[in-house]
């Protein structure tokens, strides 16, 4: 049994605007185990991104607690858009997080470069972001996150700004990268197929205020890639289960 990495217990959060107070999340309980790939699916605007912001510590929950079961647990956040800095080369973009956290050493630089090489971006390290395709840029953004050696990766709809074909290819690659680097990950998405093709477990959120409606374990042979999973007969079974959980 893999050990637990993080527990959210009774987490609630609400936003204040001039018009009033909106409850985004209500009494959310969620556990992530080490090495697990968890997907969070829910209707748009249900507070999925808020959960990631809370885990990341960008906001404090109004109630409840978020506990990490590993001292000095490092978090990595990948955003919907790549936000690569145009005045830096691909390599310098990848090193940005390390620079900011004053962790740029020979070792960490070597790791970042190994990641670029391993995942097919080595020859583009001196390129400007604008010279890369959308999918490649998003891969650079992922490597920028991975270079920080996070224990827990938070992926906030990382494929939603891409065209469909790029999206399928990239989710295959990102899956391979995350598995290859043995990372624990939480993927937020509104795309049911994406969740079912990548995750070990899918948490289905209700509409706002969000709470976990159902958790569905996904079981495919470990060697299957997301694209291959999509061709399995069981895939539609999982799809339907998530669909139903969303529409109770």
């Amino acid at each position, binding site marked *: 049994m893999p050990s637990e990495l993080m527990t959210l217990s009774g987490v609630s959060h609400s936003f204040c605007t001039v018009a009033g107070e909106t409850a985004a999340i209500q009494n959310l309980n969620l556990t992530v185990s080490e090495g697990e790939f968890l997907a969070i699916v829910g209707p748009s605007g249900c507070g999925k991104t808020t959960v990631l912001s809370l885990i*990341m510590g*960008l906001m404090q929950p109004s109630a409840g607690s978020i506990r990490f079961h590993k001292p000095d647990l490092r978090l990595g956040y990948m955003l919907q858009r790549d*936000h690569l800095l145009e005045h830096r080369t691909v390599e310098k973009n990848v090193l*940005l*997080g390390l620079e*900011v*956290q004053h962790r740029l050493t020979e070792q960490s630089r070597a790791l970042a470069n190994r990641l670029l090489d391993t995942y097919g971006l080595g020859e583009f390290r001196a390129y400007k972001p604008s010279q890369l395709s959308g999918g490649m840029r998003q891969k650079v953004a992922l490597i920028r996150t991975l270079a920080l050696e996070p224990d827990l990766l938070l992926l906030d709809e990382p494929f939603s700004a891409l065209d469909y074909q790029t999206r399928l290819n990239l989710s295959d690659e990102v899956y391979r990268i995350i598995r290859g680097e043995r990372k624990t990950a939480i993927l937020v998405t509104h795309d049911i197929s994406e969740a079912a093709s990548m995750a070990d477990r899918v948490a289905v959120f209700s509409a706002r205020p969000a709470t976990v409606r159902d958790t569905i374990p996904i079981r495919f042979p470990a060697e299957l890639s997301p694209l291959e999973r999509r061709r399995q007969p069981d895939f539609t079974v999982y799809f339907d289960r998530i669909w139903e959980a969303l529409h109770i």
Partner: protein
Amino acid sequence: MRTKPVSSAHAAYLRHLRREARAVRLCRIGILAGVLLLWELGAVLHWFDPFILSSPSRVAQTIARLYADGSLWLHIGTTLLETVLGFLAGTALGALVAVLLWWLPRLNRILDPYLVVLNALPKIALGPVLIVWIGAGMASIVVMGILVSLVVTTVTVLNGFLAATDEKQLLMRTLGATKLQIFTKVVLPAGVPDLIAALKISVGMSWVGVIVGEYLVSKAGLGYLIVYGGQVFKLDLVMASVTILCVLAALMYYAVAFLEKKVRP
């Protein structure tokens, strides 16, 4: 730099581009030559009174005379010094104010209406006030040059900074960046194009400030020559000064444009 053609169609295309560029250049020179020619011809054939409108040859003679009696460089030097000082100080101060307002969003919110009014106000209206406060000398003229370029620099640069911040703030926060890091790694590099845009605007603005300053109070400079020439009805002197001003303003603008090419990748 010539690109090597990769095919005959490509070669024809490149030829077409070069021909187009040459045609544009020819037309530009043609307009200048045509205007000068008509101007001179009109003066010689007395289509108009050259005493009122001057003529290219009289402008050239005036410049030669100024050069001969040694006052040409004095006037050019005076105006150029005032403009460069006003331009550099105005842009530097303006950029500094922009950094300060970026750093302190609350101060920015408080000062916003003041900035809007200052930006809309024709700064040259403050000329008489400056003369009373600072004195009838070069300092007043330089301060005028500063004032005119300062506010526009602040507004342009600040807007650039804020746009860059909106865009990348979230990313930098997820990486755990401090405010100083956000500024040095994202906002400042992204603001360079806006900084240069501000330079381009304020280089022209400084000329306006300095010339108006010289109109009000001066003993030397091109603005002084223009006002003096107008008062004693020496239109040759006015036209000669304006011509020199054209050349100087153009040179300074192209210097900034050259800098832009150097800085921008």
